[in-house]
């Protein structure tokens, strides 16, 4: 390949200008990083890098245009397209060097190593972004900014004027993203935004080339504002035309957190109170309503509430919460909440990173003592320097906020749960998911406070183990193969005494052909903790058919299994009414291609009789389970939007006695925000 004549000059120019430029870039990157890993990352890659890329774009032909060097070389027989490409490649190379410098500072910063790059990064409303997508996003943004600079310089031939064009131009796609959010209720994924940036960059690069070819350095051509305006409009329209359909078509195009309306709810029968998370386009709000949808308390905004982590406390309710403050750094909290008393009280708060000790903490709250006075969790601390991790049991006094730690082990450990007395049920040899083999597990009852370990003997062929939320018992699901039949049974292991009791279910657990197990590879019966009661729930679901799903539910403290049989294949787990007469679940017709769902309310079959359908109600949204407000009313989320990518969800309440389906009065998020501002 023939070398273009401009190449030696470009190389010489790069060598000449690089040291100063790199020192400046490194200083900027260090300055940004000094603000902390989160702000430093955002400032480095989303402010400094694009602006440097824009400056680089301006500089690609700044000297040639402003000092007339193009006029000199235009008297030579040189290929102008090739010259443009050589300059572009040179700029791209330098851009990669700039990005590398910023990245180097991020990586080599003393505390940088405890924020490893592979982690997902929270990007505001867009949500968490993985490393590959982040790389694409940063690269496309930088390329777009570079192209903007080249267009600005090509249009104005004066860096000062071009800067005024480029500064708003480089934030145009971001403005488009916000337009999508505000007008179309869609938050594009990082991938869609990166695609938009890439498309816009390509349009601008073509525009920059056309401008370069149209501009004659021997002519005093006037400022081509019409061309720039047309190019900017074409870029905006092109990016929007590509980005909007992409955002609507991609399943992940919608940020759930930004879906408008009620995004989560949980009924606390103690009130009854209903915790609702409401989202507008800017904030998430957590509020407490009474059983009629009336206003009780506003609990805060923009915090990653997890209402279902609720544990009881004699004086109210105890919520566990995980809150993310920055794009990388996170903070964990535990809160005490008594709705009538107003805002929650923070009883524990800690950063995920301890920069001074170069340690990363990962805390998981697991359970509370029965009286609610102690909140238990596990903590994994990772020492960056020694690359070792330590498992601890943590106990938080919910009255004093005092935290106690007890080491568990430095080996891999899977904590099933914490007993009210602070002992831990853990698996010392955790298996891979779906391994369905507990034969090699070492399930133990640990007392880290006394440093005692008691093995828990599981029946042979145990395939699932469920710990009651209150820590009163373990349920082992045992699978037995006899000839060509597979049968199941359950064994209750009392805690902390570890006494085993064989349980019989009514109706009995099924005996199935071995072929059914072999063809699917996983057991037909699954076991798990029941979300509602904290007990055990066995599910026998015939996947891909419309055969009725069957459930066996054992609430803590009960001696008998509650058998529930759906009318067809259910979509969600059943929720029992408080008096346990009725249950509700979402149901989908698997034999149809239609994704339509129904909310079924069933009466429990008594004495082996057939289940009775009480009510069936079409629903459009089943992201969260229905819940019983009381014995007559089921609360569920309803999507009012016809756009599946942008749901607007509202709570509705279905009265199963009257069949009346009405809106559950929930304050509008905007109104809610105004209320809180006051």
């Amino acid at each position, binding site marked *: 390949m*023939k*070398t*273009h*004549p*401009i*190449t*030696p*000059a470009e190389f*010489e*120019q790069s060598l*000449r200008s690089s040291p100063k430029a790199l020192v400046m870039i490194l200083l900027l990157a260090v300055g940004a990083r000094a603000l902390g890993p989160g702000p430093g990352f955002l400032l480095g890659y989303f402010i400094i890098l694009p602006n440097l890329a824009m400056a680089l774009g301006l500089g690609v032909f700044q*000297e040639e245009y402003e*000092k*007339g*060097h193009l*006029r*000199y*070389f*235009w*008297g*030579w*027989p*040189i290929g102008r397209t090739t010259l443009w490409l050589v300059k572009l490649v040179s700029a791209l190379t330098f851009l990669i060097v700039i990005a590398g410098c910023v990245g180097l500072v991020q990586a080599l910063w003393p505390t940088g190593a405890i924020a490893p790059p592979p982690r997902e990064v929270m990007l505001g409303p867009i949500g968490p972004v993985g490393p590959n997508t982040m790389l694409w996003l940063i690269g496309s943004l930088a390329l777009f900014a570079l192209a903007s600079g080249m267009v600005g310089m090509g249009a104005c031939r004066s860096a000062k004027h071009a800067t005024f064009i480029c500064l708003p131009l480089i934030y145009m796609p971001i403005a488009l993203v916000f337009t999508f959010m505000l007008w179309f209720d869609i938050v594009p994924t990082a991938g869609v935004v990166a695609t938009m940036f890439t498309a816009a960059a390509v349009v601008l690069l073509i525009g920059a080339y056309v401008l370069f070819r149209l501009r*004659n350095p*021997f*002519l*005093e051509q006037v400022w081509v504002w019409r061309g720039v305006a047309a190019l900017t409009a074409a870029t905006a329209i092109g990016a929007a035309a590509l980005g909007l359909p992409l955002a609507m078509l991609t399943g992940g195009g919608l940020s759930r957190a930004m879906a408008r309306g009620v995004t989560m709810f949980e009924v606390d029968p103690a009130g009854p109170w209903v915790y609702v998370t409401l989202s507008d386009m800017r904030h998430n709000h957590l509020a407490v309503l009474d059983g009629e949808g009336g206003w009780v308390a506003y609990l805060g905004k923009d915090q990653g509430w997890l209402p279902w982590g609720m544990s009881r406390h004699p004086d109210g309710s105890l919520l566990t919460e995980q809150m993310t403050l920055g794009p990388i750094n996170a903070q964990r909290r535990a809160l005490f909440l008594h709705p009538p008393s107003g805002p929650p009280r923070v009883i524990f708060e800690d950063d995920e990173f301890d920069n001074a000790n170069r340690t990363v903490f990962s805390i998981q709250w697991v359970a509370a003592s029965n009286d609610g006075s102690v909140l238990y969790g596990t903590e994994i601390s990772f020492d960056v320097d020694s690359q070792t991790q330590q498992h601890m049991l943590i106990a938080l006094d919910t009255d004093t906020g005092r935290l106690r730690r007890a080491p568990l082990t430095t080996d891999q450990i899977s904590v099933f749960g914490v007993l009210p007395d602070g002992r831990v049920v853990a698996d010392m040899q955790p298996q891979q998911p779906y391994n369905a083999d507990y034969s090699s597990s070492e399930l133990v009852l640990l007392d880290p406070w006394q440093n005692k370990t008691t093995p828990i003997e599981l029946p042979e062929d145990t395939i699932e183990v469920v710990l009651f939320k209150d820590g009163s018992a373990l349920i082992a699901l045992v699978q037995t193969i006899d000839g060509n039949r597979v049968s199941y049974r359950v064994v209750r292991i009392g805690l902390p005494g570890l006494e085993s009791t064989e349980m019989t279910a009514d109706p009995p657990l099924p005996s199935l052909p071995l072929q059914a197990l072999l063809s699917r590879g996983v057991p037909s019966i699954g076991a798990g903790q029941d979300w509602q009661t904290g007990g055990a729930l066995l599910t026998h679901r015939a996947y891909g058919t419309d055969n009725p799903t069957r459930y066996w539910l054992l609430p803590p403290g009960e001696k008998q299994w509650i058998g529930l049989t759906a009318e067809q294949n259910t979509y969600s787990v059943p929720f029992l009414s408080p008096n346990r007469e009725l249950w509700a679940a979402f149901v989908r017709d698997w034999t149809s291609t239609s994704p339509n769902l129904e909310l079924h309310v069933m009466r429990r079959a008594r004495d082996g009789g057939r289940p009775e359908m009480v009510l069936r109600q079409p629903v459009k949204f089943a992201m969260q389970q229905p819940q019983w407000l009381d014995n007559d009313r089921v609360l569920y989320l309803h999507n009012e939007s016809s756009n599946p990518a942008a749901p607007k969800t509202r709570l509705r309440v279905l009265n199963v006695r009257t069949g009346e389906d009405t809106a559950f009065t929930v304050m509008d998020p905007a109104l809610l925000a105004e209320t809180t501002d006051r």
Partner: protein
Amino acid sequence: MADPIPGTDTSTPAVVIRELVRHFGAVQALRGLSLSIERGSVFGLVGNNGAGKTTAIHTLMGLLPPTGGEVSVLGLDPGRAGQDIRRRVGFFPERDEPYAWLRLRSLLQMGALAYPDWDASCAAEWCERFNLDTRKRFKQMSKGMAAKSKLVAALSHRPELLILDEPTSGLDPGSRQDLIEAIQSLHREGVTILFSSHNLDDVERVATHVGLIDQGRCVLHTACEQITERFGRVRVTPNAAIDLSLLDERAEARLEVDGDVHYLVSDRRADWLAALVARFGGTAVVEPADLPAVFRLITAGDRPAPEAVA
């Protein structure tokens, strides 16, 4: 017999311009410029600032498209074969410079990549002749050194036609002398040279032909040796009865006063001027007309331009 390859027919003039028009918005830079340059000649293009010299040169190089008229350089149309022309022509722009930080050796390296016929030994020879340090950057060079460097870059591919736009402008006498000698040397080698200049002495010294542009038109186009035949110049010793300014006003001759000495210059022959002076009772001594005097005669005030002569 097959047609010759375009641009290789040496019997045609090196440059032919017919009725060249170039407008810059409302400004008419060239208003029907016509001239031709014979191969092997040294053509001096002279004119006042803004007369259109540089515009004409840029059009020849294919750097500016003409508004109207025809241009042929080495038998090629600059609008269609600009790259071919630039490959065969050496161009010395007046104001345009390479990057200030560029070393001369890098410029020559670029030239070797740009021109297929680049002769590195020729470049080295000229650098030595001009005593140029190729390690120096342009910003470290004097104006004369920079001009010589640009000239080396323009002629090291051994061009058939060398176009120099104000090569001696602003140079010290030594550098000017070096460049003039270089042009003379290249002329002896048979290179066709077009150079524009404000300095009429330089043009007189090296040009075989001269073209005078005024307000976008060629108002004089002649061989230098014909200037003395076409224009008359007499030194006048006036008496009291003669009013020489009257002759100037009647556009029959231009009066030039140099101290106590009076000259009359005209596009008529010198003996006609001498006779005219004698009719008024004065005494006239015939002297050869020089280019500066002719330039002043033609470009002065609203005097009607003489018909251009090929």
